[in-house]
């Protein structure tokens, strides 16, 4: 398996940057199937970026842990006795064995099942069987704690990075990443509903990310859910009232939005009036967010009811009640993990309704998502043929027709018809991420959110 330095010699900066042409929207299909590019992604995107780990409600007490991933590096996300959340590489420093083989649980410490090395919840090596006998006096346990990732949180959402030189999570998220999390927190104090759906799709992780901005596929891909009477796809689409927000480092939000004049009417209403109006709206209309949401999300973000992607791989759904992680497992394999959020103070019937929706829309048996996976896997598959991979993917919808507006707080966004501005922003950022050798390179050479016509 190639390491990043080796791969980077074959793929110089220019050849990496040219994998996507933002001016034409043409994407080189090798990005979906090339093993070397995939290895670069693990190093230069996943290990470098901030990866979603958990919500604070998942780890209530010291010792509570969940397993997650930074790219293909498995990590233990655990709350220690001081209440801190640590992200520890799940590999024993002795022979590399996984310390933790369950996907969630409670632990006092992590004892390796191979030879019994024992690690504290903060990763310190606290016990080595037979240390003074077999290793004599020359064993320095302090050098052999578990490798730790940097951990920061935004409003109770914990992220980790393996890059020492990464910017703070707050700066990394930028306005668009913060609006994305804001969509969830606009529901108030939330907690993760018990049960995370997990399944594997034979697709490249980016085709799954590309799809979340894709309001073009909804009517066609999901036609059967409509015909069956499950969901009125036309009603959720609002094809003319779409907004794409473009954020630094590749974050974006795409989908329906409340027009500014309508939001101005909402702004006059009390929260009680908003609740009442939300209840009496036609079905499939997004609920009117409370007053506090404007502060949290800004005057532009509060209008968005689209799908955010926190770069690289965290999809927040338009309802603000679910997130889906797209975890890479090779160029043609992706794990999807669905987390559902419940407003803490919500009455039981509302919580049940939220879970009912979540159970039936997404996840492997979801009436919408059933039909996504096969399209993604067949699209990925086609990128492997020597002739078909030369054809390129065409991500050119709306090029030259997007007028970028600037919000009061500097937000960059495009309003209008369904478009592929979000996907183009994703792939443009992606090329910049894999072309950059480290954070200082990326900071210096990434595109600022655009202005003018795109």
């Amino acid at each position, binding site marked *: 398996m190639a390491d990043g330095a080796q791969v980077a010699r074959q793929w110089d900066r220019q050849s990496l940057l040219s994998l996507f042409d933002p001016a034409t929207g043409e994407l080189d299909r090798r990005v979906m199937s090339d093993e070397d590019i995939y290895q670069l992604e693990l190093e230069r995107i996943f290990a470098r970026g901030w990866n979603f780990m958990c919500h604070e409600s998942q780890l209530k007490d010291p010792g509570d842990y969940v397993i997650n991933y930074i790219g293909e590096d498995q990590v233990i996300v655990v709350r220690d006795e001081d209440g801190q959340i640590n992200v520890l590489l799940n590999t024993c420093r002795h022979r590399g064995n996984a310390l933790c083989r*369950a996907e969630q649980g409670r632990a006092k410490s992590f004892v390796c099942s191979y030879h019994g090395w024992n690690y504290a919840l903060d990763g310190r090596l606290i016990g080595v069987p037979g240390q003074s006998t077999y290793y004599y006096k020359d064993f320095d346990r302090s050098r052999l704690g578990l490798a730790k990732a940097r951990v920061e949180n935004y409003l109770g959402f914990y992220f980790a990075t393996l890059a020492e030189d990464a910017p703070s999570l707050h700066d990394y998220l930028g306005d668009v990443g913060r609006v994305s999390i804001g969509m969830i927190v606009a529901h108030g104090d939330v907690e993760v509903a*018990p*049960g995370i759906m997990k*399944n*594997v799709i034979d697709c490249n992780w980016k085709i799954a990310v590309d799809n979340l901005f894709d309001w073009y596929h909804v009517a*066609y891909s999901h036609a059967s859910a409509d*015909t069956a009477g499950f969901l009125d796809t036309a009603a959720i689409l609002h094809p003319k009232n779409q907004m794409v927000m473009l954020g630094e480092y590749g974050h974006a939000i795409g989908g329906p939005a409340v027009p500014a004049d309508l939001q101005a009417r909402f702004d006059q209403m009390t929260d009680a009036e908003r609740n009442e109006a939300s209840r009496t709206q036609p079905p499939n209309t997004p609920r009117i967010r409370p007053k506090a949401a404007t502060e949290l999300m800004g005057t532009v973000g509060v209008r968005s009811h689209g799908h955010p992607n926190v770069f690289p791989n965290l999809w927040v759904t338009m309802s603000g009640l679910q997130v889906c992680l797209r975890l890479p497992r090779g160029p043609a394999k992706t794990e999807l993990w669905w987390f559902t959020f419940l407003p803490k103070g919500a009455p039981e019937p509302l919580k049940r309704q939220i879970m009912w929706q979540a*159970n039936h829309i997404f996840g492997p048996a979801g009436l919408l998502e059933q039909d996504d996976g*096969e399209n993604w896997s067949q699209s990925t598959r086609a990128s492997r043929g020597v002739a078909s991979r030369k054809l390129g993917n065409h991500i050119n919808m709306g090029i030259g027709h997007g007028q970028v507006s600037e919000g009061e707080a500097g937000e960059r966004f495009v309003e209008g018809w369904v478009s592929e501005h979000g996907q183009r922003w994703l792939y443009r950022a992606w090329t910049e991420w894999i072309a950059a050798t480290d954070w200082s390179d990326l900071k210096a050479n990434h595109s600022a959110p655009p202005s003018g016509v795109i």
Partner: protein
Amino acid sequence: MTLPERVLLHYEVEQFLYAEAAMLDARRYRDWLALLAEDIHYWMPIRRTVMNADLDMEWTQPGEMAYFDDDRALLEIRVKKLEAGSAWSEDPPSRSRHFVSNVRILDVADDEITVEAAFHLYRSRLNTEESNWFGRRVDVLRRAGESFLIARRSLFLDQTLILSTNMSTIF
């Protein structure tokens, strides 16, 4: 119940379950719907890989997240979706084989019979995709004339991470 009564009931239940499996494999979804009680609950909780000490968190509980948590109306929607002509994940249709074995009658109360079985649902899709779903199933069957209606089906899958693109097949 006397032994002959138990043997007879066991035979009836097994034959019913086999007929149902054959119906699903033959894609006779409308006929299958006719086997469901109005108040059916069709449920597959989420299973987690946990340590022995944490087995209390192995399964999600009723009212929590689930892969299937369907009432009759939702199951009818699933069937309508299969019939819609645009259910891309089932066109070309999957080929399924429903196996039911280790059948045990756990309880007989009035007109309701609780039946446990092991299941194996094999799905072959396109030319190269295979899914094998194994698990334990607990059904509540309700007497209806000469036959039964399925009043409850709980599916306890053996996979935790679902190793398939989707679960577009009826279990």
